[in-house]
Structure formats: C-alpha cells, structure tokens
C-alpha cells in the first residue's frame, strides 16, 4: 500500500502518526510547496484558489468531527472524517491524511476514545498550514 495515500475506509491499518511536535513546523511548508509546484507546472493560481477554501472548510470540518465523536455519532463522524481525508489529499497534507485515515479506522472499530490525540494533531497541522499560508499572503476564505 502507498503509505502516502492510505485507504480512507480503514480497511488497512494506517501508518503510525508522527509523534506530536515532530516536524510540526514543516507541515504547512510542505503543503504550500506541493501546491506551488503543481501550480507552476500545470495549474496557475491553484494555491490561491484552493488554500483559502481548504483553511475555512477544514476548520469547520474538524469542529464537526470532534462534535460527532463526542456524541458517539459514528455515521456522521465517518462521513466527516472521510471528507477531511479527501481534502487533506487534495492539498498534499500527508500527515493530515494519515491522521484522518487512522481516525476512520478507529471509528470503524468503534474505538472513539482513541481519536482525541489524532484530533489534536489535525488541529495542530491545520494551524501550521494556516501560519505558512498567511506568511505567503493567503488567508481563509470568508
């Protein structure tokens, strides 16, 4: 299995998530570099088009995921986690993909207690992306 692209349905155990703090400042830079590379080669304006939407949507989705997990609503939690996984994949946020894939696996196994640290990591990664994007003049969509 491609470790950078784990299955979002939790059918395979995802790769372990990096320890909190490890390379955290690199997450945002990696995402932006990824988009800029594609932008230069294929799709001009991609970062400016996608990143503001990503920042806004991911903030909302993460809150919704935490809420669904808190309510033990596994159906809604699975749906939202799946969307987060897809969005993370879209912008090249590999660590967020892995965290959301691991959350999906826990939801599938009804191990919701295991999700808390992963939610924390998603939030930290999002902040990293937000800071890097802001430094590049990109902010969340209104």
């Amino acid at each position, binding site marked *: 299995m*491609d470790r*950078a*692209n784990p299955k*979002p*349905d939790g*059918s395979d155990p995802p790769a372990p998530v990096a320890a909190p703090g490890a390379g955290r400042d690199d997450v945002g830079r990696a995402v932006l570099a*990824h988009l800029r*590379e*594609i932008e230069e*080669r*294929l*799709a001009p304006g*991609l970062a400016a*088009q*996608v990143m503001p*939407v*990503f920042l*806004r*949507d*991911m903030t909302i989705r993460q809150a919704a995921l935490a809420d669904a997990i808190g309510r033990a609503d596994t159906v809604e939690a699975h*749906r939202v986690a*799946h*969307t987060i996984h*897809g*969005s993370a*994949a*879209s*912008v*090249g946020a*590999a660590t967020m*993909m892995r965290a959301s894939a691991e959350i999906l696996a826990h939801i599938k196994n009804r191990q919701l207690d295991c999700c808390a640290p992963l939610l924390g990591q998603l939030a930290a990664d999002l902040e990293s992306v937000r800071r890097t994007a802001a430094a590049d003049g990109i902010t969340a969509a209104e």
Partner: protein
Amino acid sequence: MRPRDGVRVMVVDDSPVAREVVRAMLETDAQIQVVGMAATGREAVDLTARLRPDLVTMDLVMPGMDGMEATRRIMASHPTPILFLSSFLGQNGIYSRGEILAAGALDIVEKPQQIPDTRWQADSTALVRKVKSLARVPVVTHLHGATALREPPSKLIESAASRRSVSVVAIGASTGGPRIVDELLSALPANYRPAVVVVQHMAEELMHGWLAALARRCGLPLRVAEDGDRIQSGRVLFAPPSAHLAVMPGGRVCLDNTPQSVCPSVDVTFSTMATVYRSRVAGLLLSGMGADGAAGLLAIRRAGGLTMVQNESSCVVFGMPRAAIKLEAAQRIYGPAQLKRSLLALNGARSRAGGG
C-alpha cells in the same frame, strides 16, 4: 444538450476543497467551462434544471440528498450525462457500481487526489478526456426518480413482443456470451433486414479469432465498428474490445476510447440506441457477470423498444439478465431457442434453417 464550442460542466461535491480541485483539473483544458458548483444533491437537481450543463460530475456521499438520489431525479426530469467521482467505491462501497449506473450515471471514476503529486497530471488528463467524451453521449429519461416508478409493473405498457418493425437489434453479453451470440447470429438469414449491433466483453486477442470463425457461420456481413461507421440494415457491427460504442443521430457510430473497468459498456450502446431508434430497437441482454446492460435495456424499454434477456437455466452467468429483471427492464425471459425465434419473427424474417 450537445456541447458545441466547449463543454459546460457542473461540479457536485459537498467538500468545497474537492470542488475547487475538480474545477482546477477540468479547467486545465480550455474547452471545458465549469458553469456551476453544488454542495448537495438538492442543489445539484435545481442547478441542473437551471443551467442545463453538458455534463455533471457527481459526488456520492453528501449530507441530505446523496448523489444516487440526485442522479435519479436529474435523469427523471432533465436527463444529463453524469460522471460519478467518488472514493466510496470498492468493497466497502455503500452502493454497487451497477446500482449507480442503473440510476442513470454514465460512468464512475475514483475521485482525483493530488498525492503523490505525480498523479495530478495523470488524473486531470484522464478526467478531462472522460468528461469531454461522455458529454457527447445522448442520454434518455430514466423514471427511477419519478412517481411513475412506484406504479406496479402490471401498469407498464407492454410492447408487442414479436412480429413488429424493428430497425436495429442490440445484443449485450459478457461471460458465457460468445456461445449464445454465435448461436443467434448463425441463425440469421442473409436477407435479414434489421441491423445488428453486438457488445461482447472479450479480450482483444480473442476477439478477432472468434469473429473470423463466426463470419464463416453467419449469413450476414460482420465487422468490428470504427469511429464514424454507420449502422446499416443487414449488417452486424461489433463494439471493439477497448472502446465504448455510442450511437449518434443518423446511426453514426462514435467510439470512446477512455479506459474503464467495464469496456465496452453495454449500457452506453443500449442507452444511446434507445435515444436514436426509440421503439425501433430490440435489445437482448445475455449471459454475463455484473449488471452492465441492465440500465441500458431499461432505457430501451422506456423508449418503447422490445427487450429480452436470456433465462437463468441457459446462462453461464445469470448476472446481467438478473440485474435487468430486477430493474423491470426485461419484457421477455427466453432460452436460446425462443430468443432465436423472436429475432427471426422481427420484420417477418426467416432463418436459413427454416427455408428462408
């Protein structure tokens, strides 16, 4: 609606990030214009009616009305080519591929993702190619989403089963199909009037040998279709193994080389023939695994055509006919002998064996 100078696409996905990514991918081609984006199934239905796009890319899992229900409603009210983009497929999928196609979608592909970034170019190129080709496919009204579907089967108007004027016979088959296709075609006399179009799932390396042998037994000229061919009376055209055979107005053949899991698609051929020939087409769905052809056969039935499927006892795999029966697409369930008799009864033709 046909794309003329460009292809007008509507993107449906509950994730705004996914919508932007799909839009960016599509707009790498100057001929494609994303004319609208919808976040829910209900929005998709409303916007399709208002914008009349040439094609809709549809997400499956959305809050409220999902992509399946939106597809049913669009195909019932404003038939539009629909391409499903979803990562909710495969063994853990909530709907089977057959169910999605039966709802009226033309095809399903994995939702494009950017990781690893080398896939961006491949994904966007493949997506653009598929969108441009599917946008040209004529689609017909499906009544899945309309109240008429809830009427009991007995209220469906039965077409006359035999001795009727038919211009084209459409045959779809997969596993176990070659034997019955061979038997049926070998029974047709040289003066058989309807044109015949056959979609048989078969590896390319086997197709030509099979056709060469079949040509010696069949009284009609037969050939593998090429792009731009015309469907003609008294001739048998086979879909090539690696392309979908769509029939355009005037009986012109349009081949679509986009690779996908079911190729050539019986559904594409049947549904486009239903659009063009309406009640003048007879559809036969024969032995085969899966559900390809079931939705297309339903389209033929809805258009007033004659529909038949091979019965279980004579099928090697009773998958495609079963799917058609489940959709209430089949007017007749016949064994090989009855299928032969029905084909020969069309337009009063007679088999060579019968003295024709």
